[in-house]
């Protein structure tokens, strides 16, 4: 407490090394991140505008982009619903193996995407553990768009859970008790007291899961089937164009995806700031 008060009175920059550490940071950042990303945009500007539009609006590219964005949206929405249920159960209830299930949430973060990819493909193939149960029902998952959806749900789940979990944990019990004391039903309390507090975190988690799913490659390509105009995602099309030495095409598609992720990043930042302000007010 005392040192905190002293700190306020002191001049902040007594720690040496500002110039050198900031200089080294910016140089490293430029070399590894900024210059390579700038190269992508520079390469895109070498294309004429007509050429760029022609590449991006070609039916195959459009389909790949629609597929990547559409399925990412569907997967993020699924994770929003089941992620919220998982958070609620993990924070509020006590049951056997609760801590194990809590730890399990991080597996999609830690498991390499190629490993997840072959594991999911094997599971949902017609002779796999889950695929063989679904086959008699006429449901095909592996090598269809549904398979891509399953992979994107897998990789996106931790983003929703780990963003919402701390907010629900910090929610003060008194708020709910007051609502109950004032005569609110349990459902009203959830709808009018708990849910509004969780909204910023839910949206942030949704946006993070969506951003990750849009660019996902490793876990998807094994299960996708990769048929052009059917189950070919945008990142795969970039690789196909590269292998055909059509660098301009690859670069144009990448530029569109990169701009989309920058916009998403901006939205996520704004959401997080909103979320922090909400938390600060309480």
């Amino acid at each position: 407490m005392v040192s905190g008060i002293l700190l306020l009175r002191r001049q902040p920059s007594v720690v040496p090394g500002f110039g050198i550490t900031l200089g080294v940071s910016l140089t490293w950042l430029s070399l590894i991140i900024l210059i390579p990303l700038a190269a992508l945009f520079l390469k895109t500007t070498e294309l004429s505008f007509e050429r760029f539009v022609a590449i991006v609006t070609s039916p195959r590219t459009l389909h790949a982009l629609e597929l990547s964005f559409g399925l990412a949206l569907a997967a993020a929405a699924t994770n929003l619903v089941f992620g919220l249920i998982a958070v609620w159960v993990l924070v509020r209830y006590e049951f056997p193996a609760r801590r194990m299930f809590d730890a399990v949430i991080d597996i999609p973060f830690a498991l390499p995407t190629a490993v997840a990819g072959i594991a999911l493909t094997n599971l949902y193939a017609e002779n796999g553990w889950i695929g063989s149960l679904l086959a008699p029902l006429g449901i095909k998952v592996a090598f269809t768009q549904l398979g891509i959806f399953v992979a994107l749900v897998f990789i996106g789940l931790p983003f929703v859970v780990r963003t919402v979990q701390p907010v629900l944990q910090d929610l003060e019990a008194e708020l709910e008790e007051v609502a109950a004391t004032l005569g609110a039903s349990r459902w009203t309390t959830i709808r009018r007291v708990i849910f509004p507090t969780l909204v910023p975190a839910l949206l942030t988690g949704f946006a993070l899961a969506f951003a990750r799913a849009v660019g996902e490659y490793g876990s998807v390509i094994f299960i996708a089937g990769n048929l052009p105009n059917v189950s070919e995602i945008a990142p795969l099309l970039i690789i196909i164009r590269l292998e055909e030495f059509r660098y301009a095409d690859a670069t144009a598609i990448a530029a569109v995806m990169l701009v989309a992720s920058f916009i998403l990043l901006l939205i996520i930042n704004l959401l997080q700031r909103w979320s922090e302000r909400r938390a600060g007010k309480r």
Partner: protein
Amino acid sequence: MSFNPVIQSQETVDLLATSFAPALVMHRSRRDGRADPLWLQWTLTGVALFFLTIFIVIPLVNVFAQALAKGVAAYVAAISHPDALAAIWLTVVAAVVAVVLNVVFGTITAWAITKYEFRGKSLLISLVDLPFSVSPVISGLVFILLFGAQGYFGPWLQDNDIKIVFAVPGIILATVFVTFPFVARELIPLMREQGIQDEEAALSLGASGLRTFFRVTLPNVKWALLYGVLLTNARAMGEFGAVSVVSGHIRGETNTMPLHIEILYNEYQFMAAFAVASLLAFLALVTLVAKVVLEKRIARTTR
């Protein structure tokens, strides 16, 4: 004896609930208003556990089951195949380089961000996080555009007989790119919370800047730094998309473990693919256990 009959009756209700449903005990619900009805608890828990089991637990179990499908001897043969060993070696090399570089520069970046006030700081933090929002495929593509045959530095590199893309340096560059944020990200919140009082005290007692860093700052953040190393290593060893673009897929030379898994799988050597995959899955499990341990230690240092 009791001054509060309401609470007493709630305890009785809890007791009854516990005796009827020993597996599912209400958590932190001693007080009115926070307890969900028991049927709802059962339903939600069932839905959540079913979802987590189907989507996460079973895929993980499947990796090990498929890896051992043809017995231990076949498993050992698959992971000791020369191509597999070469892939493991390259993966370790790339991960070690990525970890070392990101520890050094990530720590310097975290120091610059947390120990001083300057304009544009929040922009710098966003830039550090940037690789997280870039598709892995694009993370590899940018290095092709810089160092590939048709890239900006391509002709110069060819004249000087230096190979970056489709060789080990490209793999390392792509790995460093995708793991860039982890160390700084783990350090920044902790170092910000700890402030600069400790450093100021050391400096005012006459310690040099470097000595202050190694004797004061580093011990304060060692667990968070270790956690950053852990995450960097896990991602570096598992990176697939970015490395796939720059690797060239030369067996025994530029194949990392994830790329080797892909080749085996595409050749219908499923068991061998899962055998190599099980090593990475095991690494993921170790990472998760270490994460739980480290998070507790980090929470203790923040107080």
